[in-house]
């Protein structure tokens, strides 16, 4: 899925301040809560487009927010009771549009492997090790216990972790997922250097 590319970094640079303010106000009258909700929607939209297979998920997110903000500024969605539902429906449309475009392009642009050359892999590994070492010892050991080994070993360890920590398997999965997210952020920073 390939959305049209924009010069998007933090997103929605084509939106003027007034339109953006109206969007925030529509999300929540409280400016602070509105900003938090906007960030949440943006990050989740990003995952949505990734899971939908978008080739440029950033651009798709911008496109979705752009469309919603304009409709809000126009007063077209003032009575929409649930902003999330509206974002979801617009995202769905964006996805459908770009998928059609993409299918036309796919025959011309072969998919390239994502992994880079040996140097990049080495750098990636170095950064990963560095980020792992930066984790607090408890979290690093939890990652090791949770992820290392084959599935039988992992299963046994996870059962033991659930018992030792006194939490549900789901809570354990979420705890590890949060640590992984932290690790991913660290990795992004390391790779940018």
């Amino acid at each position, binding site marked *: *899925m390939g959305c049209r590319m924009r010069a998007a970094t933090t997103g929605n640079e084509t939106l003027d301040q007034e339109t953006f303010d109206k969007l925030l106000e529509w999300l929540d009258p409280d400016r602070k809560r509105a900003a938090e909700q906007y960030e*949440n*929607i943006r990050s*989740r*939209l990003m*995952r*949505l*487009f*990734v*899971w*939908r*297979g978008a*080739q440029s*998920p950033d651009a798709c997110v911008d496109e979705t927010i752009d469309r919603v903000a304009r409709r809000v500024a126009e007063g077209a969605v003032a009575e929409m009771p649930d902003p*999330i*539902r509206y974002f*979801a*429906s617009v*995202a*769905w449309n964006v996805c459908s549009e770009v998928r059609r475009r993409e299918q036309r392009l796919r025959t011309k642009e072969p998919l*390239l*492997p*994502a*992994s880079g050359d040996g140097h990049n*892999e080495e750098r*990636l*590994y170095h950064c*990963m*090790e560095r980020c*792992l070492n930066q984790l607090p*010892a*408890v979290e*690093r*050991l*939890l990652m*090791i*216990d949770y*992820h*290392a*080994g*084959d*599935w039988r070993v992992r299963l046994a360890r996870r059962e*033991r*972790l659930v018992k*030792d*920590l*006194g939490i*549900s*398997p*789901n809570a354990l*999965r*979420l705890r*590890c*997922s*949060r640590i*992984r*997210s932290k*690790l*991913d952020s660290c*990795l992004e920073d390391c790779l940018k250097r």
Partner: protein
Amino acid sequence: MDTKTEAEKERMRGYLLGNLSDEEKARLEERFLGDGAYFEQLSAVEEELIEAYVHRELKEPDRKCFEQYFMESPVQRVRVDRTDVFLQALESARRQESLFASTPPRFPKAIHLRPSRRALGSFLAATALLLAVITSWLLRQQTRLREQINQSQAALQQEYQIEQQLREQEKQAGVQVAQLSEQLRELKSPQLNGVILDAYPSRFTRAADGPAPNELTVPLGGKTITLLLHSSSRKAYPTYRLEIVDAKESVIWQGEGLVRQTTGEYVISLPSELLPPGSYSLHLYAPNHGQRIPVERYRIRMAMPR
């Protein structure tokens, strides 16, 4: 995990692998856009899915869906690559942590890093071997020390006995020294109440009309007796030998070096204790080329002191 959660997890897997209908997809997307907890759970399921793929644990048709649908986005392909690196780094970290498996638990609750079974087996075998060696060494040391202790105790016992003997000897020597000192002192001191006995040869006393047998009474406290042994012998020798024999014919004293006085007597001083009351014979000989020549014989009788 309960049935509801398991079913939700399966639905999430279906969404990520592209197996849900459009309606189901829309419903699920709407939910995770508005529900942070649900989104977190979906992210966790996604991580598990990637991990299973990297470990080559995904079975068909999931593996095919994963490659064709899930990895369609380059972002996902990067995530898969990074997960691969992440797991390699974790495996490396796990091996390093295994080296320090003896360190105490570091989780709030007990979460232990277990070494592999093989490593554990090797460790136990090495520990058993080490214990066997240490035990053997300790037993040898114990035996050796016991022998040393026994030897030391025997040597100590011997030394103690020698010391006791030496002390006894020292004590006896002390007594002897005291006696000798006393005797020496007495000898150096003037002798009081000494008596002098003129003794005549037996041939004169045997005669019925001869002088009475030589009888002597030593007063109480008298310690020395001086005998004047008269002689009628005409032949003179340079020195003489004297033997004192008691009634049982036992020689109680003998000595050489006696010389005849110019007046014709032989003079000898004896401790009175040498001659307790009783009869004695004094034999005077003249040594001559390894033989002794009888010269005179005296008989004396010591009376009870008064």
